[in-house]
């Protein structure tokens, strides 16, 4: 009897990530597009992979290959990475490198794409990176029908996870939490003016995030003029002295303060006066300093929104807790999509028999039409062919659907296929699950 148990996926994933390797190791193995192309060539040529894809980001480098002939994929990948990067990496299987096979490798890719394996739970960049890796593999011709289908499914489930659950909800970094809150208060930040107090690292980070959010108008106030002016030049800001704060404060919509001043730089009286001049338009203040730069009593003023490091930390903690609570819902989506993919893969096993089954009927119809051709007028031949084809389609629709469903659902498909082969005299031994994988018809049904 033909072996019709679901054909093996023959998929292996070898990789390293922030879970297994320190930053210097991860940095050392990040692959550029050219290096990915070389690695994919080696995987197909030397390792005999039928299909392959490489995901390389700052937090992980993972190689997915299908149909390799390698007894020890991790050793091969370790030497391949060392060869491509031109340095001795000393990667150790089991320590830095992990190897996942078959269903476990697919489940891992699903988890990666959804951000469940990310350093910051639910971060969205990984989805774009998986998509990029998938497109690169397709462009380089190393993605085959199974990996393409797999990646389509993975990307769809990651999008579902983001839209149907709260895995990407809420800010999860202090700076981003500040910018999110500012956007929630003021809306589009493009036309807003930002006053940065202090010219240190925190101010620089805040300026970067605010620029990303569309801010173009910055003022920077700093005790040291030289450093302040350098900062202003670097960030396209206007420098003002600390003494000018009461004058410039009414013109700012967002204030970010991060100095080392021992006492408050912005007092309640200053903000009260500024709000009068601003006609009570909302003022958003971020105090990123310890000790605090902005008098906490400012928060009591109407339309003044003051958030310090503790408040932002509290928001980040809330967001992370909410994201963690969403993990089971994401996993449910992943399992559902994984099951759908595996069902599709199992259905490939039945394809050669179904094709042969249909060919058998088409052949009989063609022979009969040929035998009776003389009885038709020339103008009726096309109609007779169409009639025969239509009858075959109708007769075979139900049996072929049943065969596909039985196999995909793991029912007694093997026995059914054997019966069909026996009844119609179809040749044995072609149902290995791979022949149909790359056919055009199959691609069209994805």
């Amino acid at each position: 009897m033909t072996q019709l148990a679901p054909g093996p996926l023959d998929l292996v994933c070898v990789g390293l990530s922030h879970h297994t390797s320190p930053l210097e190791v991860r940095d050392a193995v990040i692959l550029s597009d050219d290096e990915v192309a070389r690695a994919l060539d080696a995987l197909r040529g030397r390792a005999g992979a039928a299909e392959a894809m490489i995901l390389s980001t700052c937090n992980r480098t993972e190689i997915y290959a299908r149909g390799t002939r390698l007894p020890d994929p991790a050793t091969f990948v370790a030497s391949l990475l060392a060869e491509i990067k031109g340095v001795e990496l000393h990667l150790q299987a089991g320590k830095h490198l992990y190897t996942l096979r078959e269903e476990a490798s697919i489940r891992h890719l699903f988890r990666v794409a959804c951000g469940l394996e990310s350093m910051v739970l639910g971060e969205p960049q990984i989805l774009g990176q998986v998509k990029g890796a998938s497109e690169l593999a397709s462009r380089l011709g190393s993605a085959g029908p199974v990996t393409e289908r797999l990646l389509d499914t993975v990307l769809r489930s990651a999008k579902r996870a983001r839209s149907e659950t709260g895995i990407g909800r809420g800010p999860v970094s202090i700076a981003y939490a500040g910018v999110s809150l500012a956007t929630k208060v003021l809306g589009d930040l493009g036309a807003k003016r930002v006053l940065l107090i202090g010219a240190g690292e925190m101010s620089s980070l805040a300026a970067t995030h605010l620029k990303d959010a569309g801010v173009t108008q910055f003022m920077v106030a700093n005790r040291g003029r030289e450093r302040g002016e350098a900062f202003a030049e670097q960030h396209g800001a206007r420098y003002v002295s600390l003494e000018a704060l009461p004058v410039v404060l009414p013109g700012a919509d967002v204030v970010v303060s991060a100095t080392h001043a021992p006492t408050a730089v912005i007092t309640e009286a200053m903000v009260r006066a500024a709000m009068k001049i601003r006609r009570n338009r909302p003022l958003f203040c971020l105090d990123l300093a310890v000790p605090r730069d902005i008098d906490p009593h400012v928060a009591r003023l109407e339309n003044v929104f003051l958030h310090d490091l503790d408040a932002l930390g509290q928001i980040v903690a809330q967001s992370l807790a909410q994201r963690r609570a969403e993990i089971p819902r994401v996993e449910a989506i992943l399992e559902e999509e994984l099951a759908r993919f595996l069902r599709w893969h199992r259905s490939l096993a039945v394809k050669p028999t179904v094709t042969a089954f249909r060919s058998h009927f088409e052949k009989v119809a063609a022979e009969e039409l040929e035998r009776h051709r003389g009885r038709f007028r020339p103008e009726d031949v096309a109609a007779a062919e169409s009639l025969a084809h239509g009858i075959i389609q109708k007769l075979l629709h139900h049996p072929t659907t049943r065969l596909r469903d039985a196999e995909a659902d793991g029912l007694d498909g093997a026995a059914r296929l054997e019966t069909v082969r026996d009844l119609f005299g179809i040749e044995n031994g072609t149902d290995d699950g791979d022949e149909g994988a790359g056919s055009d018809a199959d691609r069209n049904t994805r």
Partner: protein
Amino acid sequence: MRFLVPLLITTLPVLYALSVAAYARIYNTEPADTGDQTSHRVGPRVLRVAVLLHLLYLIARGWTEGHLPLASVYDFLSATALALAAVYLYVEMRQRIRTTGIFVLPLVLLIQLIASAYGSTVPLTKPPINPFWFELHTLAAVLGYGAFFVSAIYGILFLFLYREIKGNRISFFFTRMPPLESLARMNVSAASAGLVLLALAILMGIGWGKAAGLHPFSDPKTWLTIAAWCLLGFAVVAYHRLGWRGPRAVYASLAGLTTLLLSRVVTDLFVRSFHTFR
């Protein structure tokens, strides 16, 4: 046209209920996806159909009865539901924000349910005197009420979001709401539109009353409405001119709407007025 009336009055609550369900789905899914998914387009489409059919219902009623169907409190409720839905749709199209629909449409559904359940059983007791001015007056008043209701809902949403932000809470509600500034703008814009409509309603009402031989200034409803209009007008002017932004502006507009609603209740229950629907 006559056969359409019972059919439409039954269909309207169903359509509004479907809109509520669709907008609940929008509210429950990620804001980033709003507008992209097919399911997110269902709500606005169903609501548009509901508004159009509601309009058709009023036309059918007007056609068969020979005047605008605003002769009973239930007619008034139905027209208010339509005004609310129409004003909401207008704001949604202007602001391109769909996550607030769930806070407006249940009210529309509730009002229309009451109107559909009891409206058809109330006979017309007081035929309008001068239909043209009366109809314009009533139409402007209903639209004005709709605008003030929408303004109040956005005002309340503003207050909730304001408290969340001040209290450093990132709740589910926080993630669904548009920026605070947008809610404030929606609140004031809808109130401004309501002011213009209510001013027209007052002026036309006085004109119609005088033409009909009534004494509009002897009716307490006229004075209560003028008082409400002044309060709401002050809230809008204070927002633009006096820097009354944030909660203070919202409280002022809510006070105006409360006065307007009280004027309705007082007129219907406690005083004799030619505005009474009894």
